Each structure stands twice: as structure tokens, then as C-alpha cells.
């Protein structure tokens, strides 16, 4: 290898080394940029969710309900007339069931109220008895009166 060839190879090696360093720098910058973007996106999502009042910890049920309603609506729109009749029947049955349930609830409420009333009456009677006993005891323990007159 002559001197000219040697110098050319050295130049090429320096060039490759420089290119390698530049590539490593670009890669590093890209990784940093992607990390920053991901971080910002993640926290942006959390921020938006919290700002709109949809805290997943506090409002998971309402969020779920909203989602399911949103899903149900397009289905309702797509229902055929026959299918609608079936749905109406089902709804009527459901209403009847609900009414029955509500009647049952009313009955059970009345029963509970009656039970409570009975318990209360019993407690009241016991309290009155206790009061009377206490009064009797107090009367029994009453201190003998004294009279202040001219000395």
C-alpha cells in the first residue's frame, strides 16, 4: 500500500467514524424525542380525563353506563318493526315485573314498619316502666325535709 492509498483509507475511516457518531447522535435524539412525546401523551390523556371529571377511580360506574348507553342507541335505531313489537312486549312484561316487585317491596316495607312500631312500643313500655321504677326508688330515697323557722 502506497502513501496515497494509505491517506485515502485513513480519510475514509475518519469519514465513517464521523458518520457513525452522527447516526448515534440522531438515534439518541430520536429516543429522547419519542420518550418525551409518549410521556406528554400519557399525561395529557390523564389530564383530559381528570379535567372532564371522569376520574377512573371515582366514576367508573357512570363511565361504564355512559358507554353502554352510547352502544345501545345505534342498535335501537336499527331495530325492525317486528322486532320493535317484541321489544314493546318485553318492556311491558318488564314493567309488570317491576310493578310486582314494587308491590312486594311495599308489602315488605309495611311489614318492617309494623315490626319497628311494635319494637318501639315495647321499648317505650319498658322505658316507662323503668322511669316509674326510678321514680319509686327516688321517692323511697327522698331525704327527710327540714323546716327553717325563727330562732
Amino acid at each position, binding site marked *: 500500500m502506497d502513501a496515497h492509498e494509505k491517506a485515502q483509507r485513513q480519510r475514509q475511516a475518519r469519514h465513517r467514524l464521523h458518520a457513525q457518531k452522527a447516526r448515534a447522535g440522531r438515534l439518541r435524539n430520536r429516543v429522547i424525542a419519542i420518550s418525551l412525546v409518549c410521556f406528554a401523551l400519557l399525561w395529557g390523556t390523564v389530564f383530559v380525563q381528570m379535567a372532564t371529571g371522569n376520574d377512573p377511580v371515582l366514576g367508573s360506574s357512570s363511565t361504564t353506563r355512559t358507554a353502554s348507553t352510547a352502544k345501545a342507541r345505534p342498535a335501537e335505531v336499527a331495530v325492525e318493526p317486528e322486532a320493535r313489537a317484541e321489544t314493546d312486549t318485553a318492556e311491558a312484561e318488564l314493567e309488570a315485573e317491576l310493578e310486582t316487585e314494587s308491590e312486594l317491596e311495599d308489602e315488605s316495607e309495611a311489614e318492617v314498619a309494623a315490626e319497628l312500631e311494635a319494637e318501639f312500643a315495647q321499648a317505650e313500655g319498658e322505658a316507662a316502666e323503668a322511669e316509674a321504677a326510678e321514680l319509686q326508688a327516688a321517692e323511697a*330515697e327522698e*331525704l*327527710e325535709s*327540714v323546716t*327553717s*323557722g*325563727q*330562732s
Partner: protein
Amino acid sequence: MSVEERRSFACFGGRVTVQVGGAGAGAAAKAAEVQLLDAHRRLSRFLPESDLSRLNEDPRGAVKVSPVLLELAAAVRRAGLLSGGLVDATLLDEIERAGYVGSRADGEPRVDAPPRPGGQSPRPAAPNPARGWSLVSVDRRAGTIRRPPGLKIDSGGIAKGLLADLLAKELRAYPSYSVDCCGDIRVGGAGGQPRTVHIDDPGGGAPLHSFAVRSGGVATSGIGKRSWVGSDGSPAHHLLDPATGAPAFTGIVQASAQAPTAFLAEVYSKAALLCGPEQASGRLPYGGVLVLDDGSIQVVEAQAPRSRTALAR
């Protein structure tokens, strides 16, 4: 009624009743009787050998005395201060001049109607300018009483309430107690149970009023008892107008006072009677009952704590 040990005996020219409840009440009531009878022997001005009689005759300015007489002397000064001089326990010569020279215990003739000199209009009593009560001082460390020789102390006006209070200190650990020294009453007890204290009708009828007292004193002063007909034929009694030295006729025949202690109640009731109907209610900061000479009855409600403080000043 609860079971209380009860002892009733003649003392201080009247009837004393001690009631004590709880374990050991019998011994406590007996000890109380012994203590009160001993105090009577020491403080009666009608017994020549009593500590009080000896003090009154002693020519020295400072005299060493028994603890109970020391308490009485201290109370003389307090009574004068609290009543603005109306309750003056140094008017022994005056009361003897008025005719009260011997004990007028129960069983002696009682004037049925409260005495009042004919034609004389009621007049409030006033303090004696000599302020004999303020000349009495006590040195507790030395156990001596100082007063100008010749100044005599009368135990009649304040000793009963004072002794009821002294006894109350001994009995305070018992669940209940009452000490009735001829109508000057102290009640209390660790149980905190209220006791009904009736106010006697000077006419002998049903009680005029009742207080429910958990702890404190009630005393009644009047001109119906310990009254007599003087040598000039005019009615007289033991409550003197300090300014004149003569029995006071203020328009009130009986005053009862409620107070934290029997001694205070005794001072308040006497001061109320002596100052007359117009000012009497102001002399009853813890409430009381007044009987006027026209037979009317006034129940005085307790004043607010702030007013009581002002009165004390």
C-alpha cells in the same frame, strides 16, 4: 324516706336536729351532738363560766381563746362587713338593756302576734356609727382575739349558722346530712341529693314556701320569737336596730334567706329584716321569703351571679 340517723336535742336555747345518712352515720350524728353541746357551753352568754362570758369580762386587749370562740370572733367581723354593719354582734349591752338578760328557750311564753309598738311607723334600721364589729380581730396563729376591753360579743345572732357550717365540714363525706340549729339550716352530702327545706309560717300555719337544696344554707330571722314585753309595757324582741340599740320595727316580721352556707344565710336574713321591705330583696342575693307586718308574703328570686358579685363588693 331514706334511712338517716337523726338526733334531736335542746341546744342554743332551742331545738337542734342533726340528720346523717350512710355508713357510720350513727357515730357521726352522736359526735355532732357532742360537738354542738360543747360549743353551746363555750359560746352561751347566759352561762357565766362559758368561754364567751369569760372573754367579755376579760380586761386584757388580747385574749387567748378556744378555737370555736376564735371562729365566732372572726365571724363577728365578717357579718359586719357583709351586712354593712346591720348585723352587729357587739350590741350585748344594748340587748340586755332592752330586757333580754336570760335564756328564752322553747317552752317560754311566745308572743302570738309579732310585736309592734302602738302608733309607731315602721322604719329601716341603720348601722351603729361606732362600728364595734370592726374592732374585733383574730390572730389565728397565736389563737387570740383582740378587741377593746369592755366591748362585748353576743353569739346569739350568728353562732347557730356558723356552727352548722363547721359541722357540715365534718359531715361532708357522708352521702347526706342536715344540721338544723334552731332554724338555721345547712344541708348537703356527697350524694348530691336535694332536700326540701320548708319556710315556717310565723302564724303557725302551713309552710309558706319550700326550697329544694342540694348543698347550702337556709336561715330565718324574725321578731315573733324571743320577744317580750318591756318594763315600760311596750313589746320588745331580740333584733336590734344598731343605730338606736332598740328593737327594730321595720315592717318585716320574718325574713328567710337561702345562701351557700348557713352563716351567710343567717347574715342575709337578718340584714333583710333590718333594712325594711323596700331594700330587703336586695339583701337576699340567693333568694328568700319575706313576711311583712300586714301579713303579706314576698318570695324573692335569686339574683344573677353578676348582681351578687356587685352586692358582695
